[in-house]
């Protein structure tokens, strides 16, 4: 959509603006804007340093270690990696056989806990300050502490919802982060009745709060619709897993793609054949690849993933309250997928509500307490693909093993990579619209940050706990000398140099 701003046709005489989070953690992002003599944006790019070392690191490791190992990829959605890798490695134990029903339910419960906690973290800690206080609110106030001060009830709820998700994870894996639980072939630890009861105790409250949170996200979007609709706009197809009957699905299912017109252009696609669908383009200026849908070519094959894709793609939600919420969303879209970058927050809260309701259903299922956790091994396969809907979207793990059961090939596509193009497009749209040509303003910095944040990219892992992305914007003259610099520290202090 804003592709013309990806690469300027002639860069001589353009000056460069760099926006860079000052962060020590891997996965940080940087925005560069190239300006022409009239100080119009001629090129805008978001660079994310993607951490791909794991694919090499696990070569030669025994596959049974892999799920527990790869969850270290991420401190925010480790369970999604644990489960995607478990699914990919199941065939190394079971061949075509399935894991036991109890193991599958425990994995599902675990995953819904993960998505619940990650979505809540993002919405309440990172996004709600932008949404409640506006993009021009003082940075020192536009954070979760500000939310707690002005909207105490809401802030506390967010913290409690997140904590509930973490408790689900702890009960099933032994730890709130980076535990063990799922393993190739099934699940390791049975759930006891007291543990189940502890989770049951609060779940009605959590569902109620998720209903209220969805209403808040919806009302906030609709109240600001005129501004939000075109903010960081981008038009794409959407990819996600759905169940075989077309319901939204986080743990297992088939791949579906819906185009911008609302037509389903890929359906029932076997996730194991993701390579038929997705090609990853390498661009010389970015470490992160740019995937597109191969059958439709580079342009028509532009797609995004995540909660927005999940809600846009589903025929229905598997739980009643989330389905009611989805209908409101679909009505707003008028039959077409909703494209607005900021509608992702609303979609994320519908997704969250589905998680809470699904957790409640699973907790009521007596099979959850079963003791048959590991399926009987059968003729093992040598290759496996595990696809899951992580909080940020479709997550793909693909492995092959050698004769001695060590990993000989690994390919991972993390959610944020799918959205690389979408984030770039939104950044360009914002830069195009809000850069006044004269000065890199705090307003511009804030808006670029808000656009990136709407995608909840992995680089949010790298941002400060208060949700402040420490950023630098630099304007460089065509000869490379520094013209001006705006710097925001991670405590929110702004320095003009």
């Amino acid at each position: 959509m804003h592709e013309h701003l990806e690469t300027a046709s002639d860069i001589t005489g353009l000056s460069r603006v760099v926006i860079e989070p000052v962060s020590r953690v891997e996965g940080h992002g940087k925005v560069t804007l190239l300006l022409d003599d009239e100080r119009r944006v001629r090129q805008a790019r978001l660079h994310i340093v993607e951490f791909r070392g794991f694919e090499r690191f696990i070569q030669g490791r025994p596959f049974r270690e892999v799920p527990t190992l790869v969850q270290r990829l991420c401190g925010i959605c480790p369970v999604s990696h644990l489960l995607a890798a478990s699914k990919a490695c199941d065939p190394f134990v079971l061949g075509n056989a399935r894991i036991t029903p109890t193991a599958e339910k425990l994995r599902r419960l675990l995953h819904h806990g993960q998505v619940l906690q990650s979505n809540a973290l993002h919405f309440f800690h990172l996004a709600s300050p932008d949404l409640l206080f506006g993009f021009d609110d003082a940075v020192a106030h536009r954070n979760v502490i500000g939310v707690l001060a002005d909207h105490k009830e809401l802030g506390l709820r967010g913290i409690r919802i997140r904590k509930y998700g973490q408790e689900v994870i702890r009960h099933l894996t032994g730890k709130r982060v980076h535990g063990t639980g799922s393993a190739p072939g099934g699940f390791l630890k049975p759930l006891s009745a007291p543990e189940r009861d502890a989770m049951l105790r609060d779940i009605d409250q959590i569902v109620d709060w998720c209903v209220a949170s969805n209403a808040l996200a919806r009302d906030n979007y609709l109240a600001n619709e005129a501004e939000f609709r075109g903010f960081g706009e981008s038009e794409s197809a959407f990819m996600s897993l759905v169940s075989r009957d077309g319901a939204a699905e986080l743990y297992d299912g088939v791949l579906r793609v819906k185009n911008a017109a609302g037509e389903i252009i890929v359906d029932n696609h076997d996730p194991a054949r993701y390579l038929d669908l997705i090609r990853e383009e390498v661009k010389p200026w970015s470490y992160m690849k740019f995937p597109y849908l191969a059958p439709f070519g580079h342009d028509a094959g532009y797609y995004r993933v995540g909660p927005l894709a999940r809600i846009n793609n589903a025929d229905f939600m598997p739980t009643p309250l989330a389905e009611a919420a989805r209908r409101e969303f679909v009505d707003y879209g008028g039959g077409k997928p909703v494209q607005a970058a900021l509608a992702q927050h609303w979609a994320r809260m519908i997704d969250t509500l589905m998680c809470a309701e699904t957790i409640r259903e699973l907790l009521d299922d007596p099979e959850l307490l079963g003791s048959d956790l590991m399926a009987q091994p059968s003729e093992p396969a040598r290759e496996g693909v595990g696809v899951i809907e992580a909080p940020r979207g479709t997550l793909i793990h693909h492995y092959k093993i050698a004769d001695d059961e060590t990993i000989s090939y690994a390919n991972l596509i993390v959610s944020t990579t799918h959205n690389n193009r979408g984030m770039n497009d939104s950044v360009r749209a914002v830069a195009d619209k809000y850069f006044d040509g004269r000065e890199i303003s705090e307003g511009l910095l804030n808006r670029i940050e808000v656009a990136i944040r709407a995608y909840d990219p992995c680089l949010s892992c790298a941002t400060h706990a208060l949700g402040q992305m420490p950023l630098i914007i630099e304007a460089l003259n065509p000869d490379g000398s520094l013209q001006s610099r705006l710097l925001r520290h991670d405590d929110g202090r702004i320095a003009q140099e």
Partner: protein
Amino acid sequence: MNGNDFTFVLDGENIPFEPGQTIMEAATQAGVYIPHLCYHEEYRPRGSCKLCTVKINGHFGTACTMPVQPGMQVDNDTDELTAMRRRVVQMLFVEGNHYCPFCEKSGNCQLQAVAYHVGMQDSHYPHFYPLRNVDASHPDMLLDRDRCIQCELCVRASRETDGKAVFGLSGRGTRTQLVVNSESGLLGDSDFSITDFAARICPTGALIPKREGYPLPIGARLYDAKDIARVGHRQPSSKAAGEK
């Protein structure tokens, strides 16, 4: 026998011993934990890991090799010794490649437990990142040399208990590696079996059964709730099958 003749002083307490016992044996019998890694009661002590270093009448010595004498003054649980042992453990960590978070032995590993016990917070020394091979050729057992501390317990168990001599150490200094006695050098080509005692003796995650995964959930593992000093001296025995 007059018990008073056969006592020594360990951290200020009078401890009885039997003639011929080492400090380690006498302490273990009395329920006192002295950190150790290469010691096993069924084999002649090697004295190689130095973790059991204690102060004997004011001089450093290894508790696993030193015979007790009546009236000996032995210090075990002191700040000085803990600090020294911490350095020893840190060296063991940097000499191998230990990634506890995904190691199947985590929580049940003596090396890790001892590291907690001596208050190790970081590696202190630069990591060697040695290149060591994983040998996954055996159908039932995995040999991950990254985690081998070269304590030679498997070497001794295989030779003395199993009568096989599957393992040995080869090379010098930092190049030392655990080697397998087979034509190809692979465990799968040796006569090693999961029922061997050597298959149960490794104090770390270097020699572990395949297909076990992470058998105990976090919280239920041997050293999760209690420090190794309180768990006490726990070793697999060649007589009792299956104990880990």
